[in-house]
């Protein structure tokens, strides 16, 4: 009889106690999609950069797994590492990122594109919205974009987002308020008549 799949906590214990590489690869397989889609959003659609940051995220997670206290979900902990990796990288290449932002979105390689759930009402609308949203998110500051991605895309509460972003809840709320003011202008075409 096949054994039931281990949960995240059991896999983490195996990695920490026995340095079980197979258990870690299972954790990566489970969470790679969520981490990569989040980073694709944070990088405003730059898939190559998002995957580099995702790799960095999992490497850091592997090195620091012993410090994971299981107080939050493992996915929340990964979002925190991913967001920190993104913010650190953004600080380093801020000028380069500002210059190439539009071309990154336009030249985006969709060979391994996101596969949308076919249950959605209108895939064409969803795809158009995704492209427009990527462009609109690109005008936000890194902090504003991170707050929007955590609250709307990863469906975290303000408190959870504050934990991921390592800032007070009030800062998250301010980021969202400012981000929505900017997005309102950029996404005006989507406003009802």
């Amino acid at each position, binding site marked *: 009889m096949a054994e039931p799949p281990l949960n995240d906590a059991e896999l983490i214990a195996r990695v920490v106690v026995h340095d079980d*590489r197979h258990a870690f690869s299972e954790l990566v397989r489970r969470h*790679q999609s969520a981490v990569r889609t989040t980073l694709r959003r944070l990088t405003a659609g730059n898939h190559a950069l998002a995957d580099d940051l995702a*790799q960095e995220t999992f490497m850091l997670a592997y090195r620091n797994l012993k410090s994971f206290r299981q107080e939050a979900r493992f996915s929340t902990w990964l979002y925190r590492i991913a967001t920190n990796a993104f913010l650190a990288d953004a600080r380093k290449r801020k000028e380069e990122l500002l210059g190439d932002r539009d071309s990154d979105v336009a030249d985006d390689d969709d060979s391994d594109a996101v596969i949308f759930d076919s249950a959605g009402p209108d895939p064409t609308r*969803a795809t158009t919205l995704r492209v427009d949203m990527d462009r609109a998110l690109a005008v936000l500051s890194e902090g504003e974009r991170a707050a929007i991605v955590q609250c709307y895309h990863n469906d975290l509460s*303000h408190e959870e987002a504050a934990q991921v972003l390592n800032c007070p809840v009030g800062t998250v709320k301010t980021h969202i308020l400012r981000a929505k003011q900017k*997005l309102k202008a950029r996404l005006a075409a989507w406003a009802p008549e």
Partner: protein
Amino acid sequence: MIDRPLNRTDAGDDWLDSLLRADGREHRAAYVDDAGFTARLMAALPAPATLPAWRKPALALLWAAAGVAIAVALPGAVTDVSREVLRVILGQPVSFTGIAAAVAALGTATWAAAAIALRND
């Protein structure tokens, strides 16, 4: 999706909120194919720290050598200490329960050491 009260810039922002929620739903429903990502990551991890098989015997030998070195470096100290310990022990009234407790303690220590050694292997 659990609708949480998010801040709004003004009452006319409902469409933007709906748009962000719709985009968020698409985001969560999306799945990025692994396409070798996990394999590449696992290959990039540092090699596991495997301890060489000769480590334990070598350590035991080093400890033994250190013990002999100390005994040689302090001539007379070992015999003096042993003689004093023996004198103290013999000076005390020894009961059967005392001997049994000593044997039990020694046995427990031995088994505990063996268990730790086996667990590390």
